[in-house]
């Protein structure tokens, strides 16, 4: 499960990279849904790849 520090790191990076750009909200929504799917063990194939990249980078170590 994503812990608080990992969630903050992911959204911190999302904020730095995307805030002020047109897709910021869309990627934010996708990141929330993607993390929830990841926590639930569901595939991320329907999630925006830009959000998936962030999730892969910040996900808890196996």
């Amino acid at each position, binding site marked *: *499960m*994503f*812990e*608080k520090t990992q*969630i903050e790191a992911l959204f911190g990076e999302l904020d730095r990279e995307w805030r002020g750009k047109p897709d*910021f*909200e869309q990627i*934010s*929504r996708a990141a*929330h*849904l993607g*993390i*929830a*799917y990841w*926590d*639930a063990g*569901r595939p991320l194939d329907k999630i925006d790849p830009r959000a998936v990249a962030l999730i892969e980078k910040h996900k808890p170590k196996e």
Partner: protein
Amino acid sequence: MTKTVNHVVTRPGRKHGDADVQIPVAQDLSTVPGIRQRDADVSFYSRVYPQETQNIEKAADRQWVWSVYSEETLIHRKRHDEINEPLVDAAAVSGDLEPTGTPTGEDITEAIRLKARELGFGEAGFTKFDRRYTYTGKKRWVKYEHAICLALEQDYVQTQSLPSMDAEFAHFGTYEIEGALTLDLADYIRSLGYHAQIHSPNDNSAPYIPMFVAAGLGQLGANGQLLSPHFGSRARLAIITTDAPVTYDEPVDYGLHQFCQVCQVCVNRCPGRALVPDKVWWRGVEKNKLIYERCRPVMARYDGCAVCMKVCPIQRFGAPAVMEHYVTTGEVLGKGTHLLEGYTFLERGYFGPGELPQFDRQFFEIPHGRNEEWLFQQFKEKLMNEGLPPEEEIVGFAKQVRNILVKGNSTLGDE
């Protein structure tokens, strides 16, 4: 565990022009369209115990909140009131304005819905303005029988930072935008030849949620808020009544009435323990009845709180994803995770799943009732504790009561 799908709800996309979405409703979540209701009881309670607006019934605590707001909140609220006041004033007299166009007599439901969506409303639905819900002080004000229910979505990213000033900016900012948009939509209806009366979200004529449910725009959540399919409770509600020929929408079973009983995340995460797990019959409807006195003190001191909005999976992920997940897995998406359930509660720090801030009993002791009722309560306690006060104090008390009575009951709110 895969669930059997009872029915699939098709709704327009979140924004105007987006593709329709499908919401699968599991068999074990299927109940009734809208809400379980005993119609005769709704009529009975509205007749024998008519409701009055919180702006009157709870005037004492509404005044008290200003004494506990942070400096930043105070500044923002005053600025908001300055922006909002002309919008509320315009809404108050909107029902008296004459149409500017010539009516054709044709049904204009879809023309109004399209215009509402073009203006930016996330949801627009039609139903009868149910006068059983009208607040006592507004009974003579409401003019037209058809209600156009309008929901304006609040910023997604800012809302997820709840409780915070950033989220409060989104909250009040949405009301300001909505106030202006309802004026535009009412102008449009008048241009088609019909009257339009704006029921401001800041001067409510009734509890609006029952009519939104009747119009099929969502179902009542365990957090006491309308859960609409795309944004849950992350929306601000307004109504326009009209005499235009329109066709009513039907209530919908999105599965949310029962989903809340399975989910319970808002109930478990409420910092004030103001939400209750079980539904009760209240004024003719089956609902989770929140405890106002446990909610208000937290809201006032913690940037509007709204943790119940933040942790609702329908708000966070939308009904299509949450219901699909439930059908596929039998689980509530996000339940038990830091992502959905965690929140930082200002100076008290972070609370993860299963953790709640603690407040002592005194924290919840706030003024209650109408202003004059609270004044009498305080006077009574003074009499009991200190005996008969000097004459000038009694006269002072009488003057305070008179000032309240002279000022009269205003239905105007400050939210």
